[in-house]
């Protein structure tokens, strides 16, 4: 049996739709319940639903053989995983945002609030900007107007939340889409099943076989 860790929330519906097209269907009754696992119609696949940041954890430990989560999460986690396929769903951008473009122009200590401390340190570190990173776990858009920080680094889909909180995008760090990730040991020990799923997904995403 192949266990797939699926990121709950933003990505979940698109990911399940994609899996269904690839022949891995989880029926609505098992998905509707509060149970955090579901087995597909063939009994060959099991889905587990976990928080986005926990997908790399389950996959790296080999509890899940593969998983679906955002590239933003994968960059931040630094987990040692295989990243063979971009699923091209849940597209969004990782940006630096603030109340004005000048918010990050100073030469003193820049204060940045974010859910992505490693990525933020790497981004400002690479340009030699001294930065104090304030780690938050949600509602990051609130922080600049309240004076907690000069700017934020966050994930932006439409930009509406930023605008509603008086912020605008200063710089785009990178794009993020949902990625299909695979555990290193499962990639070898369950090569046939993993490759079959990978090829089926790749065919849907790219329109060509792997």
């Amino acid at each position, binding site marked *: 049996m192949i266990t797939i860790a699926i990121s709950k929330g933003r990505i979940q519906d698109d990911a399940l739709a994609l899996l269904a097209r690839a022949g891995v269907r989880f029926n609505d009754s098992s998905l509707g319940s509060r149970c955090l696992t579901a087995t597909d119609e063939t009994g060959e696949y099991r889905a587990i639903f976990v928080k986005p940041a926990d997908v790399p*954890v389950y996959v*790296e*430990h*080999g*509890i899940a053989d593969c998983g679906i989560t955002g590239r933003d999460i994968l960059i931040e986690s*630094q*987990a*040692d*995983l*295989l*990243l*063979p*396929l*971009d699923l091209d769903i849940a597209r969004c951008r990782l940006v630096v945002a603030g109340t004005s473009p000048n918010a990050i122009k100073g030469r003193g200590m820049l204060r940045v609030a974010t859910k992505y401390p490693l990525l933020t340190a790497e981004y400002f570190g690479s340009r030699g900007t001294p930065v104090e990173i304030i780690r938050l776990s949600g509602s990051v858009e609130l922080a600049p107007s309240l004076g907690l920080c000069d700017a934020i680094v966050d994930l932006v889909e439409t930009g509406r939340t930023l605008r509603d909180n008086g912020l605008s995008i200063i710089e785009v760090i990178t794009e993020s889409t949902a990625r299909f990730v*695979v*555990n*290193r*040991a*499962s*990639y*070898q*020990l369950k*090569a046939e099943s993993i490759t079959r799923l990978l090829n089926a997904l790749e065919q849907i995403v790219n329109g060509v076989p*792997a």
Partner: protein
Amino acid sequence: MHLSRIPAGMRYYVGAEARLRRKVEDTAMSVFNRWSYEEIATPAVDYYAPFEQGMGVAEAQRSFRFTDQDGCMLTLRPDVTSSVARAAATLLSDVPRPLRLSYVASVFKQQCQTSAEWRRENTQLGCELIGDGADAADLEILLVAVEILQQLGLRNSFCITLNHIEIFNGLAEQFSLDSTAREDVRRLIDSRAIPELKHFSNNGLSSTFAELVHLRGKRDVLHDAQRLVSNSRSEAALSELAELWEALERKGLADSFEIDLGDLSRLDYYTALSFKVFVNGAGTRVGGGGRYDRLISSFGRSEPAVGFVLSLDALTDVLANTGNQLISFKQ
């Protein structure tokens, strides 16, 4: 601080688990002994410099480091192979070749790379075959590894993946990659990041390296690879790997092996064959090895060598978790 605390990544073994662990160790050491590998014990505290030279800066820097009375940097042994290589070049330089050495020893790291590799003390079961550059030496090392896994009752539940570093090195040279680009591409291939590889650079390069990721499986992979490479370095490596594969087939071991040309994880000293060991029930690899023909020369004696390690702790965990394996546990 509470006196009952234990540092992260450290643990005790007691009772049945300690006995099982000892049994795994004894099994491996007796296989080494049967193949005439002489035991060697290396210092647990050593100078840092030889490890940086051997393992590469990125790996070595994760070790526990402290200074000696004279200010020289010491480390708590992060690797055994580098230390064995030094002994081969110095202490054991007048011993007739080939040298066969084996060990069971803890290695330490202060900083784990990821959450899945939580252990900071890891006991390695390992062996090194020094002074023999022949293909037969590569085969011997693989046979020793297979025998240990079989003796542990893991006959049908392990997989050893094979690669030859020179296939990638030849391609990197063919595309004139500088050291930064080479490292970027190596990392992308090793994480099988095909989307990033496709966007990496000019078309020929991107498609070749993206294709390399797909080259895994049995003998056919080597035929497909031949179409991909057009440089003598990679071609020579492919034919070496093909010969090794044929030898494994003749031994009836093809089912336990896979060729995986995308496996390029970092350990700077490997120069030719490199391999990884996976076992059902373990989410990360339980061992690996390869050929390191340049390591010993950094200690002043130029000679080929090949070896591998298995993680005693990871093997013990697998066997403890799949209790039924113990029934077929030999000895």
